[in-house]
Structures are given as C-alpha cells and as structure tokens.
C-alpha cells in the first residue's frame, strides 16, 4: 500500500506552517546541492539529522527510505572511484582507484542524505493535501497544484485496481514464470490498467462537470500566522546564510 508514514504527528515541526516549511526546505536543499566543501556538507548532514530528530520521525520507515536511496548511491561508489581520473590513491589488485572519484562519491553521499533527511523532516511531515494548498498559497500555478492533487487522489485508486487485477489473475492460478504465457498475461494486465485509467479519467472529468467545474480551482485553506513560524524561518535563514558563507566566504 502506498502511504504517508510521516504525515501525522505532533512534533514541533508538524506544528509549523506548511508554507514556511516548503520555502525553507527548497532553499536549504538548494544550498546543500550546490555546496562543495566537506565541512559544509558534514555540517548540513548534522543539521538535517537534528531536523529529523525534531520531527520525531518513525525510525523504521525513515531507515527504509534512506536505505533505498543509499543502495542506489552504492553504485556510484563502485563506478566513480574506478573511473574518476586524476591522482591515483591506491590499487585494488590491478585496478587503480582514483582520489577524485572517492571524494566525488563521498560528496554525493553526504548531499543526498542531507537533502533527503531535510525534505522528509520538513515536507513529508504534512499531508499531501496540505502541501497542495500551501503550494497554491505560494502562488504556484493552479494547473500544477490541481494536477498534483488529482494525481495523488487517483494513484490510490489505480493501485487498488492493479491489486484487484493481480488478485483476479492469482486466484485463477496464475504464477509468474519465464514463459510466453506470463508475458502475455502481464501485457494484458498492463493494458487493462491503462484502459481503466483512461475510463476513470473520463468519468472524473464528467463528475467535475456535473458540479459546475469551469476550469478554476478554489482553495479552502487559509493559513494562520504565528510567531513560531517566524522564529523557525529566521533561525533557518541564519543557518542557510552561515552555510553559504562557509562555502563561499574565505574563512
């Protein structure tokens, strides 16, 4: 089941205004992404970890997410040190291992984890619908917000439909194997899913028409101002500026 393991909670971060969180998360992620120096990267990973602690994230779910990304990063560690060029650090058997490659892999690892942790702490901690409304309040185009929200709504329906199809196949004794029959069945399932998605889209559009939809999307949420938001924003802004100064200033 697709789910939002972090959305519900009562931590300080959950209580902050969604708009502030989104803006800060984007700025923070940007600054980490363009940083190059190790002290900055290590510091930002620590800051992200502190955010994760503040958000009181479900530890297991968090580890699962991080593992997923780090398995992917592992491939960089295999490929880059062998192909990086520049100074040779040492040899593994006959293969030269380059220093540049090692450094590059280390940077990628630090950056990805820092950004991922901060995004999970700041953005995954709000329900998707709230994120949509916050984007709307931040003047992101109506069409994009609408697209996001509707996709979100129907991903679940499609998932359910996918499961229903798979179950239907299974209870009639279908087992995936390495043969033409499997390929054919999978193709049928994929095709069916596509047809159903199109049909569904058509019916949803009809339902919207029936309720007077004229292409304009209204948003209900009104966000309350609070001191906490400004304290958070100021604090994070200072951190972001410090990171920038460490990166580009000559200290």
């Amino acid at each position, binding site marked *: 089941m697709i789910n939002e393991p972090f959305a519900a909670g009562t931590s300080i971060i959950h209580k902050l205004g969604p708009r502030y969180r989104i803006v800060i998360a984007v700025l923070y992620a940007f600054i980490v992404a363009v940083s190059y120096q190790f002290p900055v990267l290590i510091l930002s990973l620590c800051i992200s970890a502190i955010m994760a602690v503040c958000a009181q994230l479900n530890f297991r779910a968090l580890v699962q997410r991080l593992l997923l990304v780090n398995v992917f990063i592992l491939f960089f560690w295999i490929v880059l040190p062998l192909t990086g060029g520049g100074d040779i650090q040492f040899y593994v058997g006959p293969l030269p291992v380059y220093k540049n490659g090692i450094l590059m892999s280390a940077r990628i690892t630090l950056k990805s984890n820092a950004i991922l942790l901060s995004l999970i702490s700041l953005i995954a901690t709000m329900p998707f619908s709230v994120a949509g409304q916050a984007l709307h309040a931040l003047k992101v185009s109506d069409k994009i917000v609408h697209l996001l929200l509707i996709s979100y709504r129907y991903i679940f329906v499609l998932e359910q439909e996918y499961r229903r199809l798979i179950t239907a196949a299974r209870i009639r004794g279908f087992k995936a194997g390495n043969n033409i029959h499997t390929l054919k069945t999978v193709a049928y399932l994929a095709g069916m899913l596509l047809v159903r998605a199109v049909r569904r889209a058509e019916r949803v559009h009809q339902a919207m028409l029936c309720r007077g939809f004229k292409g304009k999307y209204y948003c*209900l949420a009104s966000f309350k101002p609070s001191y906490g938001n400004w304290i958070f924003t100021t604090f994070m802004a200072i951190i972001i500026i410090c990171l920038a100064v460490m990166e580009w200033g000559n200290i």
Partner: protein
Amino acid sequence: MTESKTLIHLENVFFAYPDGRAVLNNLQFDFYKNDKIGLMGANGTGKTTLFHVIMGLRKPDKGSITLFGKPVSKEKHFAKVRHRIGLLFQDADDQLFCPTVLEDVTFGPLNLGLSKKEATRIAKETLTSLGLAGYEERITHKLSGGEKRMVSLATVLAMKPEALLLDEPTTGLDDQTKARLTEVLQVLDISRIVISHDFDFLSKVTEGVYLMEDGKIITDADIHVHQHVHAHAHGAHRHEHK
C-alpha cells in the same frame, strides 16, 4: 401545466456507444416537478447511460432534450443548467476527487460562485444532515465504500439541486447506513429519479416505479401497485392505478 413544471423532457432519443447496439432506442420521457420515480431494469439496459444523456455527458445520436423548459444540445447549454440537477454516480470513487471531504463537498458551491465561508457553512450543514458531522478533514480515498457513497451524496446535495438523479445509491451500504439514507431521502422534498434493483428501497423513497427495457422507459407497466394518485395524470402516458 406550464412548461416550467416539466423539468426533463426527452423526445425520440437514440443513443448507441460507438462499438455497440442501440442503448436508448427512440426513448420518450417526461419528468415533472415533485415527481419521485424509481427506475428498474436488467443490467445493461442503459439506465446509467440515460442519466448521462440527461446530464449532457453523452450526446444522443438523434432526438431532443429539454431541461427546465429550455432545449439543450450543446455543451454550453448543458453547462448552464447542469448544476440544477444533482447526479449521484454509480461509482463513488469517480465522484470524490478532492483530497479531503470538506474540499470535496465545497467544490460545487464554490464553482457556483459562493464565498469560501458560505460554501464551508453549507458543506458542514449538509454533512451533518447526513450523519457525517466530523468527517470534514477525513481523507476521501481512505473512507470505506459506504462512507464514500454518503459523502458523494453530500457533494450532490450541497449544490442545492432541484432534481436528483441517483444511480444505485444503496449498493455497498450496510443495513444501518441504508436506513439512514432512506430516512434522509424520505425527508428531502426534492424531485428525483432513483435507479435501484432494490424494490423495497424504491417503494420507500419514491412514489412510482418505471421500467427500462429495450432502450425505452415503460411508465405504465404493471410492475408496481401504485398506492397514490399520480400528480401528473395529464402525462403523455396516462396509466391505470390498481
């Protein structure tokens, strides 16, 4: 009878899906203000299709449709009057497309140009009247099938329609929810056409049952012992009451 009392008038309507046989075949139908009609018929006889044709979601191949005394044929005609008829879809998943219940129920009123405050008030009222108070912030896709159906009904009622088209409103409801729906519909004084295979339910929430067969509506079928005198004895098909 003044024209404005005829809410829906279909004349010689033909409809076929691109790949199939005729679903509506020279169909005649009149629906008057204060009519409460049940519509029965075997699976696949075109009941749902009829509703969609009335709402202008599908265009008939031939024939004419008049809604609230005005002929409608193009999308822009339908767009003007569609909100005066509330259609409850057969599949509630099609009807609830906003993330939260409150957003979904306010969607219609907001489109009608009401303020957020007004729309929210109406939505809350409607939800409460359906026994759904406290559901405002629930996530629509996480509702149970029966809850989805009741919320769908709320989204329709929140637009204050003058006529209701309900497509199998009781499928998937447990006895208790069904009883509540029945009660709500009995109290509501809105003209309606209700598709259902549940005769018992129809006899409670409607005042007469029509049958759909061979792409036509049979109004004077001996399928139901009418216990009331029809309000429209002047209708096209005058029929006997037993």
